[in-house]
């Protein structure tokens, strides 16, 4: 197995290289540059020109590319023009928030989806099953931003139960108990929203897998051994039904890095998604290129992770 993993990792190098060229090229083709925003009728064009020269923006493209790549390999993605801090530091801060939000959301998603999917599948066509289906249709049909705004309006503004923006109370001392409590408090609303949206496909998948699995011969065999029904479900049906969902776990880990643009934007949560939107709006190239590259690599790694997870949970799949 490790041979295959090594081969797959080696294959990623050319993929990432091509990705980096694309990312760089796209950034070049975008109209304007970081200094466009500074231009006013009073600005001396020579000043701008000098700034450009200093930033190396007038060099031939291949030189700019290799300079950028060389730095990037050392973890230096340049400085954000808008925030005036190194891109790596900026992304580092944001990534923490996003990963925290995504992990909590992921756990919540599964905590809601697995029991609902199992119950709906086990007692399909019952009243409970129908209720789960209705929940599913609603959460599937409702657009992310609508649900996020509704949650924000109802629980945030109308009831006032939860904070309406940010990832932590800014006045608190970092590292204190109150600080961590505040972070958790700020997480609740966006992560619940996130989770509600994420449950749909898992419930649907699990339900149909359970319905399918419970008529399988190995389930009949288990029952004919005299295994109690509860154990039949937990040990035989659940594990087999969970397989196709396990295969998507790797991709969801990719999602951890990417974050949700909508949710972070609406809850004003300082994460990667929000950063991505902001840096596009402000044409902050160095941040955009770093983020796109990061998302790309995360996707490649996620795919590999999915395959590895599958080969661990399913003995029939061996990657070698």
């Amino acid at each position, binding site marked *: 197995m490790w041979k295959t993993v090594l081969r797959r990792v080696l294959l990623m190098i050319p993929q990432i290289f091509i990705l980096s060229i694309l990312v760089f090229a796209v950034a070049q083709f975008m109209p304007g540059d970081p200094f466009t925003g500074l231009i006013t009728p009073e600005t001396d064009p020579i000043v701008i020109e000098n700034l450009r020269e200093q930033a190396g923006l007038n060099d031939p493209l291949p030189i700019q590319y290799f300079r950028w790549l060389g730095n990037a390999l050392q973890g230096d993605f340049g400085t954000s023009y808008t925030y005036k801090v190194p891109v790596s530091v900026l992304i580092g801060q944001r990534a923490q928030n996003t990963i925290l939000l995504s992990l909590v959301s992921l756990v919540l998603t599964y905590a809601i989806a697995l029991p609902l999917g199992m119950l709906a599948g086990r007692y399909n066509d019952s009243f409970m099953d129908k209720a789960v289906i209705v929940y599913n249709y609603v959460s599937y049909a409702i657009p992310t931003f609508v649900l996020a705004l509704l949650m924000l309006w109802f629980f945030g503004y109308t009831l006032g139960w939860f904070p309406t923006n940010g990832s932590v109370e800014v006045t608190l001392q970092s590292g204190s108990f109150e600080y961590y409590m505040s972070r958790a408090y700020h997480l609740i609303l966006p992560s619940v929203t996130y989770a509600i949206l994420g449950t749909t496909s898992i419930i649907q998948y699990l339900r149909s897998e359970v319905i399918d699995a419970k008529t399988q011969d190995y389930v009949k*065999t288990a029952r004919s*051994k*005299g*295994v109690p029904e509860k154990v039949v479900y937990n040990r035989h049906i659940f594990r087999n039904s969970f*397989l196709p969902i396990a295969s998507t776990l790797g991709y969801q880990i990719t999602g951890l890095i990417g974050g949700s643009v909508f949710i972070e934007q609406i809850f004003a949560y300082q994460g990667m998604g929000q950063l991505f939107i902001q840096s596009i709006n402000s044409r902050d190239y160095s941040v955009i290129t770093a983020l796109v590259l990061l998302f790309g690599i995360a996707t490649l790694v996620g795919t590999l992770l999915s395959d590895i997870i599958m080969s661990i949970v399913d*003995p029939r799949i061996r990657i070698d």
Partner: protein
Amino acid sequence: MAVERPLLEINHLETAFRVTDDYYNAVDDVSLTLENNEILAIVGESGSGKSTLATSIIGLHDPNNTQIKGEVIYKDINLLDLNETLYNKIRGNDIGMIFQDPLGSLNPLMTIHDQIEETLVYHSDMDDKQRTNRVEQLLDQVGIPNPKRVMQQYPHELSGGMRQRVVIAIALANKPPIIIADEPTTALDVTIQAQILDLMNDIQDETGSGIILITHDLGVVAQTADRVAVMYAGQIVEEATVEELFGNPKHPYTRSLLNSVPHELEDENDELHVIQGTVPSLQNLPRRGCRFAPRIPWIPAETHEEDPVLHEISPGHKVRCTCWQHFHFEGEEEQ
């Protein structure tokens, strides 16, 4: 002293499935007995109710859309009266079950060891080590070479024949007095089939259990069974010892079936016998009269019984309806 009761006694068993809003009998008034040390074959084509009969005995049907009537008597208790907890004490312990598809009937995510051990967990007080020893011993008993290694393997790593041996090991684990085998060799190649059937015969010689063998394959019946019950449209139409059934078949369905088996051609015009029409679906079963009558329309209606029952025409040989006395194949003269 009380009269010795058979190992298993099925009395007037009716299993009905719900189709849309009504219940229809897939198994209709079936009475059978199984003795110790006997292989009873139940033969029929798809839709005859033979597999439903098996799942009814072991109580594996969906209670939401199934109704069962009648009795399945084992050790003086009617299994159909048991609740799930008590039934689970019987399943796997007193009745072992073998299914058709050896790949499908094993859980793909569990090792062979775990799957055989599971049935020991619920029916014995062995500890871990004893159970593992028993698993090894069972694999050896069903002729699996190198049991220590095979125990740690997963079903997909074994061949079809080996998997079916594992399935048999599961059924045998608690030395059940009754084994029900539902098409145990249908999915196997002919050489493997012969091996598995020999194995089942050997096991029976050793354990003396009673085996109910459900199959559509008349050759398998001829080579394995002691007694045979032929099912058509949910009913038993003929029951006899295996020699009697193949040597002296009576019911028109049995005779037709035996005539449609492919054989070496005698000449260009030699044709296989085809039974007219098709097996009626559950909803379209004739509720009254001989169920086979529509498929032998050249036999006069008055030869059928109004409400056909099984007649014992010689000791142990039972035939349903009276039409067999006048039956002849189409185009042939009545004897």
